[in-house]
């Protein structure tokens, strides 16, 4: 019974959201407000179960007193309810921003700059790379390495801010923006399939989990 009721609720909400495609209407408004209300409440328990319990409550009960510091910072956030001392909330905000900035420095280098440079330094020709049939072996053709090197450099130059884009910088930046646009077009086209799959998923749900059992319950 719980499952059947659940499927009906799910199917109803699904159709209400889809009605938005026609225009904003009471059904969508209903589903939207339900969604925001339900998910906001759900987020409270999610935060409790996955954040506050394991990171604050459990360590405290095991006498790891260091977590008192972030606990106090957390309480400082709540000073925003009292305009006269609201400035105290800047402290935890500063800590959070500091964490983000510090991480951006090290992770940007470790996760982006270094590996991207490494995989762009490629041999363009030589004994290690053999020329294959372009059509059957597109992905192991050595000219690919040249395309990657040229494309990466041109794109980097497009983001060169402190010189006017004229002359050699301008020319390279133009090649860069061509690479960027072609890349955006390709990833747009490539994503269509994944998005249609999502719709197929919802429609399969409506048909297989809701309509077909419903039809069966009428015929039996």
């Amino acid at each position, binding site marked *: 019974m719980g499952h059947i009721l659940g499927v009906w609720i799910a199917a109803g909400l699904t159709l209400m*959201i889809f009605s*938005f495609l026609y225009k*904003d209407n009471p059904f969508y*408004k209903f*589903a*939207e*407000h339900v*969604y*925001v209300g339900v*998910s*906001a409440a*759900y*987020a409270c328990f*999610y*935060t409790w179960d996955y954040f506050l319990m394991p990171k604050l409550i459990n360590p405290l009960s095991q006498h790891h007193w260091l977590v008192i510091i972030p606990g106090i910072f957390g309480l400082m*956030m709540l000073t*925003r309810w009292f305009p006269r001392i609201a400035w105290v*909330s*800047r402290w935890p*905000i500063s800590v*959070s*921003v500091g*964490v*983000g*900035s510090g991480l951006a*420095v*090290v992770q940007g*280098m*470790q996760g982006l*700059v*270094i*590996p991207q*440079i*490494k995989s*762009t*330094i*490629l*041999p*363009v*020709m*030589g*004994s*290690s*790379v053999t020329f294959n049939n372009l059509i059957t072996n597109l992905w192991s053709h050595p000219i690919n390495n040249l395309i990657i*090197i040229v494309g990466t*450099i041109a794109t*980097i*130059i497009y*983001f*060169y*801010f*402190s*010189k*006017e*884009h004229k002359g050699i910088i301008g020319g390279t930046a133009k090649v860069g923006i061509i690479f*960027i646009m072609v890349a*955006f077009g390709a*990833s*747009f086209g490539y*994503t269509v399939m994944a998005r249609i799959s999502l719709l197929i998923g919802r429609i399969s749900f409506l048909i297989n989990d809701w309509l077909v059992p419903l039809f069966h319950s009428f015929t039996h």
Partner: protein
Amino acid sequence: MKAQTKEKIESEASNVATAKSFSQWFHKGRINILVLIILFGSFFFIYVRMAKGKKLFIRKIAGLDAVEEAVGRSTEMGKPVLYCPGIGYLSDIATIASLTILGKVAKKTAEYETRIIMPNYDPLVMSAAQEIVKQSYTEGGRPDSFNEKDIFYLTQDQFGFAAGVDGIIMREKPGAIFFQGVFFAESLILAETGHSVGAIQIAGTDRVTQLPFFIASCDYTLIGEEMFAASSYLSRDPIMMGSIKGEDASKLTIVILIIVGAILGILGGLNIGPFGNWFYNFTNWFTRG
């Protein structure tokens, strides 16, 4: 509660090579990172020092020049401005960049006495944003026009947030919409809805996978680094501009590294002298430790 992204999935694989000695005082495998941080950091300091009191050039960024136009048009039509910071947290650098842009946009809306609406995903971002907008209105001489309730929390659910923002767009019909910050799949849901009410849309994100969708359905899009340069661009403060020049020096360094690598690769491939070995060592230096 975000749809699973590639990055998130990939992190599961990172536990393969964890057994390392932790008794040392310096992480030898990370020497390459340290060298680059010191190098790029010194560019930053040199150019910031040199920039003091100077007027520096920065190339045109169309999306940022359009901020004034967007707020102005919204005012003419008597419609509010919507500022959406995306679904990043305050620890995401793109979200922080978004907040610095918010400061500039709020100054404009204060000048024009236009209402600014900002739904939030992360309550910490909301708190910071309230302070920023309040300050911008005070500096703009209109502290009374500031309404804290217009900068509110929605929900910490990716698509719940999208559903809520879509509803707000349909009902408030903003004249200008800013999507600045961290966006995942909801980017196109928001931008298409924004387009359907005829708003001028200025987007910006560091999520490369979402950029094509913003490009397709927004009027202006700040691509990655352009968003980080925005606060310097809008303030024209010499020190901030100096740091942009430092970025450019780092960029040139990287370009040179790649070209040197390619040349070593060619010479090595032709079996000339020790170049093959050099190329091998050169690429290996960048291997993560």
